[in-house]
């Protein structure tokens, strides 16, 4: 699940840097309002998870995002 999830996040961020579960989102320029809504859409439509906007704003790493859809 981790590999597939990372690919989806890479697709959302559409950035050039290498991503891992430990990547800090605050360091990624493309982690912006467009990425927030794209993540919510993926969590809901693909993983069937209703994630609260506040939870998305609070996450630190990509690994934290994975926890939100598990």
């Amino acid at each position, binding site marked *: 699940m981790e590999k597939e999830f990372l690919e989806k996040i890479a697709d959302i961020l559409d950035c050039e840097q290498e991503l891992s579960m430990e990547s800090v989102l605050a360091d990624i320029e493309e982690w912006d309002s467009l990425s927030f809504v794209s993540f919510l859409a993926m969590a*809901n439509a693909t993983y069937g998870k209703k994630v609260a906007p506040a939870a998305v704003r609070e996450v630190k790493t990509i690994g934290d995002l994975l926890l939100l859809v598990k």
Partner: protein
Amino acid sequence: MLNKLSGLMITKVACALPKDNPSVCDYANGLITEKEAKRIARGTGFERLRISPDNVTTADLCMAAADVLFNEDKCLCNEIDAVIFVTQTPDYYLPATSHIIQNRLGLKKETLCFDINEGCAGYVNGMYLSALLVSSKQCKKVLLLAGDTISKITTPNDRATRCIFGDAGTATVIETGIDDIAFNIQSYGDRYETIIVENSRHRINLTDEQSGYLQLDGMGIMNFTLNEVPENIGEILKFMHIDKRDISLYACHQANRLILNSLAEKLGVDYDKVPFTANNIGNTSSASIPLLLQGIDKDRLKKVLFCGFGVGLTIGSCIINLTKTKFSELVEI
């Protein structure tokens, strides 16, 4: 409100767009780079926006669309019993713009005139009121004008609104006929702050310039669209005993491509059943559904589900037969 109205027909639809069609990058001058514009376009689908000049209002765009219909059918102007103008960008704070439209279009003085302050769900809400007037035999022909010039209420320093909204006006004639239209209209006023221009000079009178502009909570809108909208659609399908696969077209408000693709996934239907065609127009609020219909093949118009969702928050959906509807060529002003 979940019900069905009878004795109806949607006979004519026309749309008008402003000529000016800048790229998102050019329009959001200085806010985003070319690279960011490409990324935004990949997500939202918007590459270009239709932007009206300072001296062109929503009423001008809607009247240009109505003129197309009146030129095609010279008797129509005298046969209109009511004009319903759906907009969030009226000409004046008061009077209601529909009265001005009555005069400028040369409609008879007995014409009922209503302004409705609705946005993304406004086409369906306006359609419902138009259908009620016809179904109850109070009117034979209703002119529904729906549109917005949201570009005038976006601020040049807000990326979230500046890169997605376009301007448009539309005109639709609803008249006595043999069709039924089912409606499901819902209101979620608890989430009124999700999409708001808060400075009304009444409830809030802020001197902060930002308060006079449109503010959006993107995540709130996405959650609403993916949780409440599929439920609304499920209810109307059940009410009409229609299988989701038997809907020939889901004509949904063109909020952006990400929202529509995600909605298709939630509904469990193919992406092409929920088309997004506003790439070079922008999100045009209540005008987006009639604009979408312009380019659709006739064989997909038999059992169409309209769904508007957004500012209110509110959802309006209806199931409608458009095979007898005439779609006029798009005009630019």
